[in-house]
């Protein structure tokens, strides 16, 4: 029997997004706009509660479309928390605040659909909902040419990715006659894949590669990140990538047939992403290259999955655990870095020279940016270190020594541009700063920034506690 309660989280998110759109036409004044933020937070909280409530309770799925296991619940909660963070910190746009928050809720919807995906069609649906939302968010400042260009560029390139994805799925469907991932998994066991299915899955991986901005499908990332408003860029880097990786997790059976392709995507992203960042002088583009490299690390985790997916996250760190942990860790660091940057410099193009002296004139956001960048670099006393270590050590445990060492070398290269941000932020005196205008941030935004920067440090001392929180008890 189908229990429709299983799609309660998705239902809550979509309904409240629509409600928000309606409310926003009525409320455009200042205090009401803040109310919209709290409505969105409330919607996300309700969806999270629904997720926990439905987890594994009403059978696994609705016709195999969504999987409501404790594992997928954990992943969804992680993604929802990232979106909630973006809701909390994103500056409210001057006009159309309602649309902005509605878009964020739609992004949350897409992420949850992807995290609980059980069916190829659901996967396509989730990716499209998420991407469509992000196109609009990137081009949200439609009066700015750069922003508009970024939005269109993202639309075109992600459209190409979707085309690959749809084509691949169609080929797979043609061979196996089913869209259910569980049945697809079963039908590959112990059998060599027919050529058309191999090709179809290959196309599918190319499509996912586009969404992830894995090398060699990464070209769009720097331009889009730079054009987007800070919180949209942060969301593309964190929740969107996390959701795409989460959607990839049920396809671990592809590791038998398409290992080399995935390994190439992984190694390429880890090396090329870090190398490309070296010569870049614009901060958002640097963060974009950093996100490409981080996709490589996440794929390294994906490569080490060998068995059936777990029903729930185990107590000790496995490859799946390391991936979910890393999605959160990387997500919060990337979102935090983009937000802290946006809090200090509101213009679209931020070069390293624009950071000069901010360590002194804007100490709080600068210190937060410092911590988030340290976390992205994976230096100790930040959770980024543990995230990376978990991934690399699972790779070592699984015997992927070469890939793990490539990843380690990649992160050594990457340190170069992270340190460059720190040096420009703190060590060049402000007299040399050409532009010294200061943006104001709300004290609330500052408080969220400080709290999460502190969490980055505190959880680095108790990484198991964070893992326990992510693992949950349902």
């Amino acid at each position: 029997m189908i229990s429709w309660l299983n799609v309660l989280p998705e239902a809550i998110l979509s309904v409240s997004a629509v409600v928000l759109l309606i409310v926003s036409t009525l409320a455009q004044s200042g205090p009401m706009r803040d109310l919209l933020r709290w409505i969105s937070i409330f919607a996300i909280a309700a969806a999270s509660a629904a997720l926990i409530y439905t987890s594994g309770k009403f059978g696994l799925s609705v016709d195999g479309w969504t999987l409501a296991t404790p594992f997928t619940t954990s992943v969804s909660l992680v993604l929802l928390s990232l979106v909630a963070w973006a809701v909390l910190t994103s500056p409210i746009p001057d006009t159309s605040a309602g649309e902005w928050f509605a878009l964020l809720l739609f992004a949350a919807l897409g992420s949850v659909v992807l995290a609980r995906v059980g069916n190829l069609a659901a996967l396509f649906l989730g990716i499209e909902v998420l991407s469509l939302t992000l196109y609009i968010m990137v081009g949200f400042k439609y009066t700015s040419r750069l922003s508009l260009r970024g939005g269109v560029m993202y639309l075109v390139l992600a459209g190409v990715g979707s085309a690959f994805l749809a084509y691949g799925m169609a080929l797979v469907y043609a061979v196996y006659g089913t869209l259910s991932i569980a049945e697809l998994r079963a039908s590959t066991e112990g059998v060599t894949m027919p050529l058309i299915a191999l090709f179809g899955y290959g196309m599918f991986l190319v499509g996912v590669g586009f969404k992830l901005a894995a090398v060699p499908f990464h070209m769009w990332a720097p331009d889009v990140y730079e054009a987007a408003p800070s919180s949209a860029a942060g969301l593309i880097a964190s929740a969107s990538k996390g959701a795409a990786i989460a959607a990839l997790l049920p396809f671990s059976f592809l590791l038998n047939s398409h290992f080399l392709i995935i390994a190439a995507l992984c190694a390429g992203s880890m090396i090329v992403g870090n190398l490309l960042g070296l010569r870049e002088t614009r901060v958002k583009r640097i963060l974009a290259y950093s996100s490409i490299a981080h996709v490589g690390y996440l794929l390294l985790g994906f490569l080490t999955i060998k068995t059936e997916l777990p029903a729930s996250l185990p107590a000790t760190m496995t490859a799946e655990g390391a991936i979910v942990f890393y999605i959160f860790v990387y997500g919060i660091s990337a979102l935090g870095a983009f937000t802290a940057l946006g809090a200090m410099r509101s213009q679209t193009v931020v070069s390293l020279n624009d950071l000069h002296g901010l360590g002194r004139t804007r100490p709080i956001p600068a210190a937060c940016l410092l911590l988030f960048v340290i976390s992205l670099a994976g230096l100790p006393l930040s959770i980024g270190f543990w995230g990376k270590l978990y991934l690399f050590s699972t790779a070592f445990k699984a015997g992927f020594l070469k890939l793990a060492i490539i990843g380690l070398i990649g992160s050594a290269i990457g340190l170069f541009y992270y340190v460059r941000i720190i040096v420009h932020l703190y060590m060049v005196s402000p007299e040399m700063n050409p532009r010294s205008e200061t943006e104001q941030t709300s004290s609330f935004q500052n408080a969220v920034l400080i709290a999460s920067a502190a969490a980055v440090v505190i959880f680095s001392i108790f990484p198991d506690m964070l893992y326990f929180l992510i693992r949950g008890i349902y």
Partner: protein
Amino acid sequence: MLMLTLIIPLAGALFVLLAGRVNATGARVVALISTVLSLQVAYLLAAQARFAVIEVDNLWIPSFGVHFALQADWIAALMVLLTSFLSVFAVAVSWREITERVTSFHVWLLILQLGVTIVFLARDLMLFYLGWELMLIPMLFLIGSWGTGRKEYSAFKFVLFTFTGSIFMLSSMLYLYYRHIVDTGVASFHMDDLLQVQLSQGEQWWVFLGFLIGFGVKAPLLPLHTWLIDAYPNAPTAGSLMLSGVLSKTGIYGLFRIGESFAPVGFSDFRPLLIWLALAGIFYGAWIAFSQRDIKRLIAYASLSHVNFILLGIFIASDEGFKGAILQMLCHGISTAALFLIAGAIQHRISDREFDSLGGLWRIAPAMGAFFLFFAFASLGLPGTGNFVGELYITAAALEYHWVIGGLTAVAVLFAAFYSLRLFTAAMHGPEPAALPNFPDTNSRENLLLSVLAIMLIILGLFPSVITAPINTGTLPTGIETRMRNLSETNYSSNHIMLSHHSTLPITVADAALLQEAEQ
């Protein structure tokens, strides 16, 4: 006691943050109090560790097998003592030198001390690595924000070199971790567990190579030294003092505590090469030092030369070599700190470090001249100072190892005389340059600091057995771990303080009192 060595710098950093809100002097005072307290604790720790190995062991991150395990044996305790000793000086020399962003300077300094202390005490490889990386960001800020000259570039280079090296080190650690899981099915980073892993010769080569690169950068071993030439001279005085006095020791310490222990075969197979590398480092450092025109750069190269002297003692791996190396680690830390202190004082007075603008200081500033003379000669091995004893040990060990190596080592000692004399004469003798304006002699604070350092060197020179006697080893080592373990099994019972019957140490009244205190 063990935990206090970590808690005090951490708490100190927090209190400095608070005190810094009041005024800059408050931050300085709190930092000074914190470092002095650390020194006191480190002294008590050393007094205990001389007779027993002190341990703390808690499971910290169960899912990953990381233990919060600390262990202080005699050598570790000595290194912690050196660290906290020099930290006091680092705060003291910055009293007048650092006038901008005083609070954050001292916070970084204390975090640096914390990182170094963790490195020396860690009994868990992951904890060690954490401490190792914890030194990185404070040093980046100390050099980059408060340095001189091309400070950002120097800071950058330092961080990149160290971090790249530490990636290799981490690879070796993860490999050991992975092998331990394969062998036993248990995930653990505890050194005692990982020491059980039996590696083949080939594996040991790779593992040792990883450690060698990681630690060699910090020491620095010859081809990995290029960051030093920028970082040492351009750091603020406290930074160069910590870099040369303490951070270089972490590299040496890691080499024998971890590199040699976990890959003894790798170590002994690489030994001949390493000995030549260390010798090359001695001569290279001395040679380049001789041709420098900048005081701090000269001291930096001289320090490179001396550190390689210590490494030579480690690589020869005989008892004498090891004892000499440990002694020399302490003495080098002290004498280089003193030299950088004087160089910093000169620079602070005339904002210049070039020899051309110096000269004749002996007449203008006799006290500074006297100290300069003493420390320049101490660092080349003046009899009566600890450096002399250390060099004697190492040279003897080298002679015992092979006459060619020994001969070259003896020549190297001679080389040190050249640049030391040059350093001294260029600054102190000769005509005063006309441009030299008002140049005050050392003030009472500097006099006090330098006298303490001088006295320490002389004490170490007169009573070296205080340091070396507890390093009381029997057989020729393949790994220091085994040596230290034999030591702890025969003479000590761990975790419990017991006076040994075999101990040849003279136990002073003060020691006995301390022991009683510790037992309570």
